[in-house]
């Protein structure tokens, strides 16, 4: 009978705990990261009697947490992937929408400048048309500035994001280390500290959202966390901190370090990985591409304007200030050498950055974007500069072995161009040179074309008379005797003159400054063509086509990131569902358990009642 009481009490205690656990499950049905718990019942050791072993009731072996490590790590990796794509896609979207915007994008700016130049060409003496042209030039420059500022603000947003993310990672890493210690202490009793384990899983998932991690389980219950290629973030009860330093290569960017060593290149996944990827794959290429376009356009506009005469008959000057290409020694150089980068040939420009290295005797160059080596021509001196990709680089003396120089020819260019000619009279709408066919000519010699090659050549605007001493011989300004071949260019002071037709002795052709021809629009027509002129990509790309490429690239990057994000989002949802299928609380199940345990409890109460009535029967029998 005492046994029956013992069994009853053991069962009542066990079912009370079971009911409490079920209650705990129901209470935490909506707690994120909560894993349902289950009571494991076990029989108490039986007592040996003469009649054999008699059971002595039930006991709780353990309260188990239903959790699948594999599914949890799958969820972590899905979280890492999604967080990376969310950070990446937000930036891709922002750049794509801004670059391709029909109203504020460069395309509309090119159209407006072209229209203004065409209007100037139809009415070259009109001051209003000239004002509009200068204003539209400013408008185009403003568009470059706005886009550049937008990309710069994206860069800054990445900087802030990286800072916030590393702070969060450090906080989470400390909490994980802390929990490791508490879990190890609590596990020493032999029973799992379920709710602490849940808490740590939740933190690890959050950490995975910030940066890609790998974990290993220690025997004492602690979890070690690694980032990158296995750099330890949490070992046992200790957390290490991610720190930020200026990048030795590019002081404008933060470098993420762990224990004093750079891990920026190794980190991947999570918000932090997404931000770093966006910086390298989206923002920097876009800034360089935009800068290249701005540089090529300003060089060409200035060149064209200098090839014409303004409203007052003076040779045109620069319209835009050309950006200054950046080249600087990297931190850690031991030598004193500096570099100077100048633009030489826009058609060869590539939207890239370069790292120039000196090994003590030779220089080598590689692209920052691809890491591929770039071949160098020249020796780097002022007389014989390094020439590559349309750039010229001069390195001063004093370089030491191991010194490196970062060349960023276009990074800041789009923000630096500015209109320097605001006087509408100074826009060179007229061609600089005019030709006069002698009125007494008796031959059929005529001017086919006059192409300016160098408007800065000496004697460019001087009057030059070509006089034929015989049908196939001519002199220039009365001197020399040259053979005349119709259709082959005559090279003069910065231009090429092509004559056609048969000449007669005594025929004259005069080239002179086109002064006074204010109604001339030949140069304005060329200015109007600047946006569609193929000045880039080795003569295959115009400003308009390069911009279209930029738009479609930025747009597809945004679209790709968005599609990948949707796919990853589905993967994460699946991982969450799989996790929830194992660990989540199902209220119907808990209701059933509640009924089950309640009934068992009630039944055990009946057992005690029966034992009591047996006991009472015995007492009353003895009292008689």
């Amino acid at each position, binding site marked *: 009978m005492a046994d029956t009481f013992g069994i009853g009490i053991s069962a009542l205690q066990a079912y009370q705990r079971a009911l409490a656990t079920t209650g705990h499950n129901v209470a935490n*049905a*909506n707690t994120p990261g909560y894993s349902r718990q289950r009571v494991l019942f076990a029989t108490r050791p039986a007592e040996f009697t003469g009649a054999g072993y008699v059971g002595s009731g039930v006991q709780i072996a353990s309260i188990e947490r239903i959790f699948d490590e594999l599914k949890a790590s799958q969820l972590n990796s899905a979280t890492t992937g999604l967080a990376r794509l969310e950070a990446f896609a937000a930036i*891709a979207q922002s750049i*794509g*929408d801004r*670059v*391709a915007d*029909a109203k504020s*994008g460069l*395309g*509309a700016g090119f*159209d407006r400048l*072209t*229209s203004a130049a*065409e*209007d100037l*060409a*139809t*009415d*070259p*003496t*009109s001051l209003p048309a000239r004002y509009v042209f200068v204003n539209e030039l400013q408008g185009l420059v403003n568009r470059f500035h706005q886009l550049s500022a937008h990309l710069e603000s994206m860069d800054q947003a990445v900087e802030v994001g990286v800072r916030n993310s590393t702070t969060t990672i450090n906080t989470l890493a400390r909490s994980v280390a802390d929990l490791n210690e508490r879990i190890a202490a609590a596990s020493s009793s032999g029973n799992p500290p379920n709710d602490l384990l849940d808490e740590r899983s939740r933190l690890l998932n959050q950490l995975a959202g910030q940066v890609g991690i790998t974990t290993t389980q220690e025997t004492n219950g602690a979890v070690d966390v690694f980032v990158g290629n296995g750099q330890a973030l949490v070992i046992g009860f200790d957390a290490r901190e991610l720190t930020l330093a200026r990048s030795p290569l590019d002081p404008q960017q933060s470098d993420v370090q762990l224990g004093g060593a750079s891990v920026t290149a190794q980190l991947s996944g999570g918000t932090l990985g997404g931000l770093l990827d966006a910086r390298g794959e989206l923002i920097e290429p876009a800034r360089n591409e935009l800068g290249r376009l701005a540089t090529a356009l300003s060089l060409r506009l200035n060149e064209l304007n200098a090839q014409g005469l303004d409203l007052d008959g003076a040779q045109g000057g620069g319209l835009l200030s050309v950006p200054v290409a950046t080249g600087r020694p990297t931190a850690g150089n031991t030598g004193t050498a500096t570099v100077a980068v100048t633009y030489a040939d826009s058609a060869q420009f590539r939207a890239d950055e370069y790292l120039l290295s000196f090994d003590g005797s030779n220089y080598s160059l590689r692209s920052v974007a691809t890491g591929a080596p770039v071949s160098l021509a020249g020796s780097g001196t002022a007389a014989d500069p390094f020439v590559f990709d349309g750039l010229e680089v001069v390195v001063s003396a004093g370089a030491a072995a191991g010194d490196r120089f970062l060349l960023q020819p276009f990074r800041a260019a789009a923000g630096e161009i500015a209109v320097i000619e605001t006087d509408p009279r100074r826009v060179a709408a007229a061609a600089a040179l*005019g030709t*006069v066919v002698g*009125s007494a000519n008796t031959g059929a010699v005529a001017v086919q074309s006059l192409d300016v090659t160098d408007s800065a050549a000496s004697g460019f605007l001087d009057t030059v008379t070509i006089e034929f001493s015989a049908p196939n011989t001519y002199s220039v300004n009365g001197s020399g005797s040259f053979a005349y071949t119709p259709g082959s260019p005559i090279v003069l002071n910065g231009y090429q003159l092509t004559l056609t037709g048969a000449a007669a002795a005594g025929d004259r052709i005069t080239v002179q400054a*086109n002064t*006074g*021809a*204010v*109604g*001339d*629009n*030949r140069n304005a*027509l060329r200015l*109007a063509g600047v946006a569609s002129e193929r000045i880039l990509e080795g003569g295959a790309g115009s400003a*308009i086509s390069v*911009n*279209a*490429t930029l*738009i*479609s*690239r*930025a*747009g597809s990057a*945004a*679209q790709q990131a*968005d599609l990948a994000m949707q796919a990853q989002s589905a993967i994460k*949802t699946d991982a*969450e*569902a799989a996790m*929830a*299928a194992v660990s*989540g*609380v*199902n*209220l*119907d*199940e808990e*209701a*059933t358990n509640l009924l089950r345990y309640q009934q068992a409890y009630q039944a055990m109460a009946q057992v005690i009642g029966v034992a009591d009535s047996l006991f009472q029967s015995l007492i009353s029998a003895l009292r008689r």
Partner: protein
Amino acid sequence: MRVASFQFQMQWLATVMDQRAAIDRLQLQISTGTRILQPSDDPAAAARVVELGSAREAARQYIENGSVARERLASEESLLAQAGNLLQRVRELTVQAANATTSVDAKQAIAVEMRQSLQSLLAIANSKDARGEYVFSGLRSTTQAFVGNGASVVFAGDDAQRFVRVGPDQLIADRDSGEQVFNAIPTGSGLVVARASATNTGTLLLGARAVVDPVAWDGGSYTVQFVAPDSYEVRDAANALVQAGAYADGDQITFRGLSLSLSGMPAAGDSLSAGPSGTQSVFQTIDRLAQALETATSGPSAQAATGNVIGDSLEDLDRALERIGEVRAQVGGRLQAIEQSADLMADNSISLTAEISGLRDVDLAEALSSLTNLLTGLDASQQAYTRLQGLSLFNYLR
């Protein structure tokens, strides 16, 4: 598979959120009429739309350029028509003056009218267009085209045209230089010019002059010298004798393929010159004529001198009229080219607009039917949720 209650709700919520987002997007597409809300929706189409937009903008600009050029050419055309009428009138007056019955007084009266026509023609040649540019001064468009008076009128512009872009590769001149229209007009027949010397004292009158054998005509300069009233010598520029012969009133002298019809009798020492056509401004032509009429006197040799100038001038006036006719024909051709280009550009613009619209605009019928589908789906999903939520076992634990 177990379904966690929390997960079930969250998943339903996520589905409903997706549906709401899709509905919101569709609603925005319908209300803005564009399919591409952000370039990233369809990057290829967005880039294409920007390029097509540039092409459409260019087409609009070409049409606009064409209309400016058309306006200029139309006003040039009307100036040329006026100039042609004036020259025609001068020619009529010249014919009138050539009539043997026209008295000296009448000739002088004609000269007065010619002077007025000369002034009017000069005013036409110095016209400005609506934008204040001289129409006929070439590229020196703010420089007065012709300065001076009478015989001293000189062209101050330049012999160049301005071209306006009316199509991707089509440039049309929007003006003609006064050099071509008024200044450098060929003299004589355009091939050959023959003049009686102004110092002639006889009554020799130079009539028709024509190259009858173009192969024989070598374009050299020749002098017909009358050594006696009935005998002539033709000498070339080097004074070498080319031909000599006898002359009688009404004879034709023919040498090197050039035939000169003569009448009247020269005095000994009178001469004629013949050579390749040069150029002379229309103002000089009229001035020379007016001067001859103003100074006309009676008497056979004076009448012959005036008659010779009138004969020369009729030829020169015809050249000037021809030139104006040619330029008018060119202007007409350009106006037609502008018209064609504008039509082409307008067609382009329409097809570009259609293409842009095809890439960018939303198909309303399709969008509205998708919206209906989505709304039905959302409604069904909401109803299913409320029904399923009522199924909890806890509802029965009372």
